[in-house]
């Protein structure tokens, strides 16, 4: 498969601050690729460099085989960009927003009229077509921003934190739309700090922290490689948690103490819980769950994704 994006030692510095630190990765045609990491990990900076609106400090970057520093407009003609913050034209209607954005790509009215209809259906905004953008809900604005990014039939759809700030219901509607695009074979590049978003939408992802890549693989492989199958979460009460950590440590593969709870990594959570209760310990609450990318991140960095 050909790679649509390829970064070699890609670096961005602001004065002494290194936002992106010599990273390497490739995004192939048709895949959905994620950048997972907490705020400030350098995800948006990478997106803007790929989107040819921010110059890199050093390293190499090729987007669709071209250098974004030299061929900005030519590359941007093939990208659909969904920024972290909606930047729709709030005084224009839903339809007008799609239309003017299409015009920025030099697309004709003849092309845009059916395209806009198709996108309104896709974004489930047909009823809102003549409503001013300022009257839309957060989820609708997000869907419109995604529809807008698709107006030029881009080769790569880039989404920066697509569901941040949305309520769970709006988030699920959006995931459903993005999943549909993935099925259609659109190349997706997205950043997120939600592990479930990354697990649902990304075939392959890089886990980032402080401008560096900590790991790269499919979500399932990352979980297999870095953590056990299950996690047992125990709470003994915030001041008592630390008392039990040493005692519990021998019983499992790995243990993490968070401010409010203890995480025990094991391949069989229920059995471990029975054993612990059998040994005379009585946690206030206990929960057995499957390991997630959150656990991978914790393992790799010692910190939570959302702080």
């Amino acid at each position, binding site marked *: 498969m050909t790679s649509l994006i390829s970064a070699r030692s890609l670096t961005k510095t602001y004065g002494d601050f290194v936002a992106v630190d010599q990273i390497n990765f490739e995004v192939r045609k048709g895949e959905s690729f994620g950048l997972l990491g907490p705020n400030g990990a350098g995800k948006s900076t990478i997106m803007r460099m790929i*989107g040819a*609106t*921010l*110059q890199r400090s050093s390293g190499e970057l090729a987007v669709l085989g071209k250098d974004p520093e030299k061929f*900005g*407009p*030519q590359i*941007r*003609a*093939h*990208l659909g*960009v969904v*920024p972290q*913050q909606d*930047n*729709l*034209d*709030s*005084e*224009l209607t839903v339809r*007008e927003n799609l239309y*003017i*954005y299409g*015009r*920025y*790509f*030099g*697309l*004709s009215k003849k*092309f845009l009229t059916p395209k806009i209809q198709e996108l309104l259906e896709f974004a489930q905004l047909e009823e809102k077509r003549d409503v001013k953008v300022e009257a839309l809900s957060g989820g609708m604005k997000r869907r419109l921003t995604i529809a*807008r990014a698709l107006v*030029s*039939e881009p080769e790569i759809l880039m989404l920066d934190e697509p569901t941040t700030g949305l309520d769970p219901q709006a988030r699920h509607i959006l995931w459903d739309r993005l999943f549909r695009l993935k099925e259609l074979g659109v190349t997706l590049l997205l950043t997120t700090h939600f592990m479930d978003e990354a697990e649902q939408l990304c075939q392959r992802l890089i886990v980032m922290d402080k401008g560096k890549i900590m790991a790269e693989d499919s979500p399932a492989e990352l979980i297999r490689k870095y953590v056990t199958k299950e996690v047992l979460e125990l709470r003994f009460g915030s001041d008592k948690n630390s008392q039990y950590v040493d005692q519990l440590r021998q019983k499992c593969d790995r243990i993490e103490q968070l401010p409010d709870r203890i995480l025990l990594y094991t391949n069989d959570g229920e059995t471990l819980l029975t054993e612990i209760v059998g040994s005379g310990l009585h946690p206030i609450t206990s929960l057995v769950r499957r390991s997630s990318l959150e656990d991978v991140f914790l393992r790799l960095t010692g910190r939570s994704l959302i702080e």
Partner: protein
Amino acid sequence: MKVKEAQREVSRFGALYIVEARFRNMFKWRSAIITAAILNPVLYLLSVGVGIGSLVNAKQGAGGVDGVQYLTFLAPALLASAAIQGAIDEVTFPTLQGFKWAKNFFAMNSTPITGNQIALGVYIAALGRTFVTVVIYWLILLIAGALPTGTAWLAMFVAMLAGGAFGSIMLYLTSKVEKEDFFLTAIGRLIIMPLFLFSGTFYPLSSMPLILQPIGWISPLWHATELGRYLTYGHSISGLMIGVHFIFLTSLLALGLKLAFRNFTKRLSK
């Protein structure tokens, strides 16, 4: 193929797509824009032109000011200042909105559109709206009998040149605003208002103390007013000064645009 052709169109006509979007925005405000364009001259003509004019005319007698009725003297200055105000309004608000409030310039820039094209598009659209204002103003002045000569219609283009010069500088300055928009108030009170008052608008610049006259010399309004008076009632002015006024306004316009282009591109890629 389709994409490739479309892309070539954008590199050539990108600014016009921005103009199209801006016009769509302005169209939402069409009644406010037209109402202001009519009320502004009518109110000025009634209060200053007729009201103060009757005092001035009574005092000056048959000679009037600069050899004409006060309203005739005042007309080109009002026309140019309306053009300046219109251009300022239409470059400052979209630019603040584009960079700060709605950040839609960043949306434009994530397409093949460049920073230069955004700046140029906003600028051309502002001048388009200004032209509507100027034509309405001119017609009202004509009806009021303040435009006696056959060359008076050319004053519209001189006014546009003043709006263009001021507008390009304001486009640049607004693109530099990072913090709050008190900037606009400051510009209005500390620059535009003084220039309006000291540019030979209400009386000849020469009747002011010499020490205050340089304010007029650096003001696009004064240069446009001098040219306007020459065109609307034959105000006496040397060929050299016509050249000076014209070159001053066009240079300012070009300088402002050049700086705006550079800063738009810089700010979008920060």
